[in-house]
């Protein structure tokens, strides 16, 4: 198992819930607080007369109120107080609440899962946010939960098979892999950080539709290359190099619309990779202009298998009403994985109208496809992968209990790297935080090693959480959870008026 190392935020001021306020007019710089606080919130640097500004994000809040080191009570001048920070109140939205964002940062920093509902579900009022686990053990999650786990968790498997048909067997050690994000929509160091974390955890990452950068070569065994409708950067060599090829028909955030990389983001490198011209907008059309039927679809899959007989093929589709039929069609065309991308999924740029309105949320699509494949008698030979709004390990587990084999994650990886979900990935120079940007200056912000370790930590935290939930269900493997509706309950029961 990969090593977890503590990786703090790259910013001097991390956004956090609690703000420690020091009233300068009262403080006499006696340094009592600096001596007391075991977490390093207060500090008086050697040679300085003044106590530094409090590092609020290290503060554990009022939970140390009754301890001898509670700074607020022990300040001789009563100059210290705790409040809720203004940043905390401002960040987040219904789907990605402030606690989900900050919680993901903390997990990426420490590799340890966070306890409490606010770190498990969002505030959207439906889907995953209205579903809980139906634990029968009544044990609650005590402080010793993780220690108990240490004794038994070794025996619990989180491995899933990606190919259930004939051909080469491919499995991943954790039931999730990284979603497609193209070079151009994200920076090279982010791409490499994702690949490095995937290799460390024995899983995959995906190139998205934007070519296969040379630097990614050393991660070939952990890379999925995408063939999407614009065919950008698709070459025989890139298909032959990998174990999994992903056919992208549509993306959940913009189903039926295709992609559009704005000219601003088509830098020299991006243009070279995509065999296009610098500064010109690139359209990835919709749909595949050569696929009008399942037979045409099969032709494409045959083409891949001809080029690379060992490769397994994933078909990524969004979630229209007939998504179940599409899944069956993909099976008969020879696909190994049906990857359902729900309508509330992430994107580098999409019309707001599409994100909100087109196609159904993933929570409905999973059981719909799962049931239909069962009826057709092909559920055991097809792997269902779900994505589009998987924010936490709990979402992943719920998706699996609804009928998926595993999930694909995207946004959460970027949040782990410091994304605040401001939604400006597409405008001007791209991401102001240097994550989803190929701007020469901005993209320097993310260091490869730092990023890779943040993702390794995040994966570790997710895995621990998954193992803990499986243990509470008395399961030995994540595979036992697939389609176990009885493990889920609704937070609000539907009642008759």
């Amino acid at each position, binding site marked *: 198992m990969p090593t977890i190392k503590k990786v703090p935020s790259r910013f001097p001021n991390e956004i956090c819930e609690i703000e420690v306020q020091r009233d300068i007019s009262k403080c006499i710089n006696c340094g009592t607080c600096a001596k007391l606080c075991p977490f390093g919130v207060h500090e008086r640097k050697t040679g300085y007369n003044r106590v530094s500004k409090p590092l609020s994000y290290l503060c554990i809040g009022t939970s140390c109120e009754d301890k001898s080191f509670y700074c607020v009570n022990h300040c001789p001048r009563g100059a210290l107080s705790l409040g809720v920070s203004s940043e905390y109140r401002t960040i987040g939205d219904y789907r990605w609440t402030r606690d989900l964002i900050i919680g993901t940062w903390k997990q990426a920093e420490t590799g340890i899962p966070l306890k409490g509902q606010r770190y498990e579900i969002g505030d959207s009022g439906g889907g995953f946010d209205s579903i809980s686990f139906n634990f029968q053990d009544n044990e609650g999650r005590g402080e010793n939960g993780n220690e108990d786990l240490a004794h038994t968790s070794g025996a619990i498997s989180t491995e899933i098979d990606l190919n259930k048909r004939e051909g080469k067997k491919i499995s991943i050690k954790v039931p999730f892999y990284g979603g497609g994000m193209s070079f151009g929509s994200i920076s090279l160091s982010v791409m490499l950080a994702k690949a490095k974390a995937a290799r460390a955890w024995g899983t995959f990452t995906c190139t998205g539709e934007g070519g296969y950068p040379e630097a990614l070569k050393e991660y070939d065994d952990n890379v999925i290359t995408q063939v999407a409708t614009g065919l950008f950067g698709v070459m025989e060599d890139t298909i032959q190099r990998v174990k999994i090829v992903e056919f992208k028909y549509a993306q959940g955030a913009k189903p039926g619309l295709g992609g559009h990389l704005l000219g601003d983001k088509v830098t020299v490198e991006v243009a070279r990779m995509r065999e296009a011209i610098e500064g010109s907008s690139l359209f990835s059309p919709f749909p595949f202009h050569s696929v009008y039927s399942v037979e045409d679809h099969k032709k494409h899959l045959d083409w891949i298998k001809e080029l690379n007989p060992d490769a397994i093929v994933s078909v990524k589709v969004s979630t229209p009403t007939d998504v179940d039929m599409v899944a069956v069609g993909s099976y008969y065309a020879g696909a190994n994985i049906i990857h359902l991308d729900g309508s509330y999924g992430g994107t580098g740029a*999409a019309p707001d109208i599409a994100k909100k309105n087109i196609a159904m949320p993933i929570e409905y699509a999973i059981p719909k496809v799962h049931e239909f494949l069962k009826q057709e008698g092909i559920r055991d030979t097809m792997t269902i992968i779900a994505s589009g709004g998987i924010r936490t390990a709990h979402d992943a587990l719920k998706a699996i209990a609804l009928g998926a084999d595993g999930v694909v994650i995207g946004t959460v990886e970027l949040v782990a790297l410091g994304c605040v979900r401001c939604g400006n990935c597409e405008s001007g120079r791209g991401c102001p935080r240097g994550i989803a940007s190929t701007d020469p200056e901005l993209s320097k912000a993310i260091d490869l090693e730092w990023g890779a370790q943040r993702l390794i930590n995040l994966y570790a935290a997710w895995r621990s959480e998954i193992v803990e939930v499986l243990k509470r269900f008395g399961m030995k493997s994540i595979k036992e959870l697939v389609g176990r509706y009885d493990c889920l309950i609704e937070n609000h029961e539907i009642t008759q008026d």
Partner: protein
Amino acid sequence: MPRKYSIEVIPTPPRHTPIGKFEIERGADCINCGRCAIVCIYEVHKRQEEDLRSMAEPVEYRCKGCFSCIQECPRATLTIREGTDYSRLGDSYWTPEIINTNWYQAETGKIPVSGAGYRGPFSGEGFDSMWTDMSEIVRPTRDGIHGREYISTVVEIGRKLPAIKFDSHGEIVSHIPPTLNVPLPIIFDTLPFGAAKHFDPTFLKFDENVYGAMAKAASDLGTFMIVNAGDGFKSEGHRGQSSHIIPHISDLTSHSFDADWIKACKMVELEYEEDVLSVVNEVKTLNPGSIISVRVPFGDNVEGIVEELTYAGIEVIHLYVDRNGKAVNQTRKKRLLIKDMTQKVHGHLVDLKIRDDVTLIVSGGIAMAEHVAKAIICGADLTAIDLPLLFALECRYCKDCQEDLACPVELKDVNPEWGAQRIINLIGAWRNQLIEILGAMGLREVRRLRGEVGRAIFLEDIEKDTFDKVFARRVSYDAND
């Protein structure tokens, strides 16, 4: 193939400083190091022009909430919060986001595009409880708004014959009712406020400028605008635009309308009441070529009224709800929403096999482009919009004007040319979004979207299909309807 209809959008900046989403405060212990100005890529932070040693006040409306300056400040002296004025905009239906996004579209003429996934609630009331469908693989090639293939948004207003009869000489014997071609399924409705209530010079100015902007936009776009026939909007200047104006006669008894004006218009709208049919005849006598629309509130017995009017030969029915998309005239405790009522009326007419005898215009609470598409899916032929037109002119929906207070953006002083372009931009952006929706479904014309409930996903249906089973519900999701 008809000439491709397109809307020319021209960036048209607002007259007033926009209301920013965020407020940024620079604390007293700022050391003027300028780090914020380096990390901000939106030019919120700058040095003072007159004294480069100090930082200027942040230009808040440019802030996009990336938190970079907050997190990078070496003194941690910057704070960010949601803008007070922004969060107070509008109300719970006309949310700050809706108002803001309409402003953006009126300024730029562009579809709102952003990165990262959807941020809102899972679902909600009315239109928020449905999703539109898409077609994954099997269908002809198309590329949406960037497309090579033309997606038509034309709708016809008027009665449509199921078939045309010919005599033995091949001459048409059917009487073909007049129809109006509108290049997009959006017309302008009467404004809910701000219009002339009395002949006060301020209001006359409002009429001239705001209605002037609307009339010019309607004329340029080739669409129509409904105006209260009893109001001050009769000035000679707008007579010229009669071909794009639909006078709305609300006072049927006193017959206060201007007969000459009615004669010049292609369509006239009458408020529904018991003896509306006699006034219909009167108008038809004045102007036999005109199309008559009857404006009926969505509410109790609306299906009955629509049925009766359709059988009586009314060609167009304009169904309206209140500003927030709820029934106007209903005794039920839980008032029905525009989405459900449109489906009911449409379904009723389909059952009677008279759906194409009448055009249904639906209005009230149409706040975003998605509402146009969804109202049409539910069975409307087209929609009429009101408040978004005012938003295009920078209205903040503060409702001060309703209390006779001064308008913070001085709507009455709008330059009609400027205003018309802002409205054109807004409609251009809305139309492109409609095309995106149609394109995703593989439809090539908006007329085929009408009543296509099979091309939509309704919350109650999908809950029933999937989660009823998953959660072994004893009571089905839609049992309480």
